[in-house]
């Protein structure tokens, strides 16, 4: 990256979990940068600490997890030092997050519009009519008709729910969107639809993505750079192409070898 200052800089991050038998270090001295407009992929198996990092960046980690060392700089400012009000304002507008299960991140008893309105009223002090216009605009952006705003989450398919979450995550024009296994619960065709949508939206709006998944093949299609994690550490990081073509670390090679690959060409 030639940019002088990265959008996000995670420096020497350590996250511990308090357990009855002592502390367990889930994230060990992890450092990485995400440039402006860059998609960084964080790959690894369950338990490797990748989601813990995502939650730590948003400061959504909860006890028994605590950050014991390191800095998280967003445009040069230390996120870990943000006072409560600044943190609340920063979430959604500076950085937003898309989780694996859209059903769990949407409130089941509110319509889609009410969830948009809640966010827009808090952050932008928007009235109902303005919120409605904004929500409809965002829905159109992710390819959903505006009448779906009046639906409850359970009335939407899994793919539509994840599009709603994506629309909400982009509404306040954040510069960073953290996506933690955003399409793992979805079918492959829907997965491709949504990730292509993200690629197109990034081109249009300009934002960076921290993309977390266990699926290396998918990551290689989507991310600009990839970092591979094992037991709380980043063991290898590099450009997506070089990580596919010539993985250096033994663990990365093993991850690749562990997956039966689809061969043959398809139109």
């Amino acid at each position, binding site marked *: 990256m030639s940019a002088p200052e990265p959008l996000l800089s995670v420096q020497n991050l350590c996250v511990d979990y308090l357990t009855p038998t002592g502390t367990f270090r889930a994230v060990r001295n992890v450092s990485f940068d995400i440039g402006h407009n860059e998609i960084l992929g964080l790959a690894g198996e369950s338990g490797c600490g990748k989601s813990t990092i995502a939650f730590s960046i948003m400061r959504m980690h909860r006890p028994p997890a605590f950050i014991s060392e390191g800095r998280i700089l967003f445009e040069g400012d230390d996120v870990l030092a943000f006072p409560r009000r600044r943190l609340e304002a920063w979430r959604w507008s500076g950085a937003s997050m898309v989780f694996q299960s859209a059903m769990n991140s949407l409130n089941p008893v509110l319509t889609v519009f009410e969830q948009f309105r809640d966010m827009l009223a808090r952050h932008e002090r928007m009235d109902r009519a303005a919120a409605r216009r904004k929500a409809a605009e965002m829905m159109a952006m992710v*390819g959903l008709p505006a009448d779906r705003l009046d639906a409850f989450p359970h009335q939407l398919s899994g793919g539509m729910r994840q599009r709603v979450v994506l629309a909400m995550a982009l509404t306040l024009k954040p510069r960073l969107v953290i996506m933690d296994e955003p399409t793992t619960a979805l079918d*492959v065709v829907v997965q491709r639809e949504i990730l292509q949508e993200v*690629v*197109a939206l990034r081109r249009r709006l300009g934002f960076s993505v921290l993309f977390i998944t266990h*699926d290396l093949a998918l990551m290689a299609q989507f991310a600009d750079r990839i970092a591979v994690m094992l037991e709380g550490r980043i063991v290898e990081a590099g450009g997506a192409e070089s990580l596919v073509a010539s993985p250096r670390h033994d663990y990365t090679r093993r991850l690749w070898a*562990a997956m039966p690959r689809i061969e043959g060409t398809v139109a």
Partner: protein
Amino acid sequence: MNAPLLSLEGVSKTFHVRPVLGPARRVEALRNVSFSIEPGRALALVGESGSGKSTCGRAVIRHFEPSAGTIRFRGADIFAGRTRRGDRAYLAAVQMVFQDPFASLNPTHTIRHHLERPLRLHGGAGDLEARLRRILTDVELDPATTLEKFPHQLSGGQRQRVSFARALAVGAELIVADEPTSMLDVSIRKSVLDLMRRLKEERSIAFLYITHDIATARYIAEETAVMYAGQVVERGPSGAVIGNPHHPYSRLLISAVPDPARRFDAAGGDALAFTRQAEAVRRLAAQPVAGYREVAPGHFIAYSETDHA
């Protein structure tokens, strides 16, 4: 060629859904599904969620009777002339392995209990202890350390091996495996697939392998059937169906399988165009299948009445 172990002939299933709120609906979960599996071979059913692939598996293990069509096991209709004895034999011969190894083993019982019961109930000769050990060794688990453990003391991959051991304990000839690896970590998935492959080759166990993971279908199954909206849209040798799909829906599905060689930002890049195309293909694939044409030996493509092909 051997006689098929399992065959489905024009199997359909309509569910009548009566929700607490809203009107009753008919759901055609299976429409005219036909395929067969020979001993020691595997057929993969692939498709999106809701395509009917799991419903197919559940019909085979007799969770419900089809609305139309016949399911035969070794040539005999599995729903006709049922006797207690026949039922028991069928339950032993056809076993199911589920997606979630956490939910399919009883947390309050040891692995010994899980395997001893089927060994006792389904008889068989020989020393129980020796058979227990042999079965665990067959699924590549160490009998000395595994037998007295509880399910929560095992990893997901080990638990799934216990599920396969349980199927072996009753002498299964056909295992219906519904997404057996999708909850496992990437690095252990392949070892479980390798186990299935070995059971197939060494013990002539047949598999109905239900999955949304198309790469694994090719890895273990000789034949693959692609399902959409309760119908088989394409069926044939896995290499041909996956490497050279003919039906538009199979093409769409296979083109969406993650492939590191094709970048999203390079591949056309037009998100809206891909979504529109996907919707058009889904509409087409949901049309009733009028028949199948054979494009290569054993490779069948569905056509609908509106097709000009």
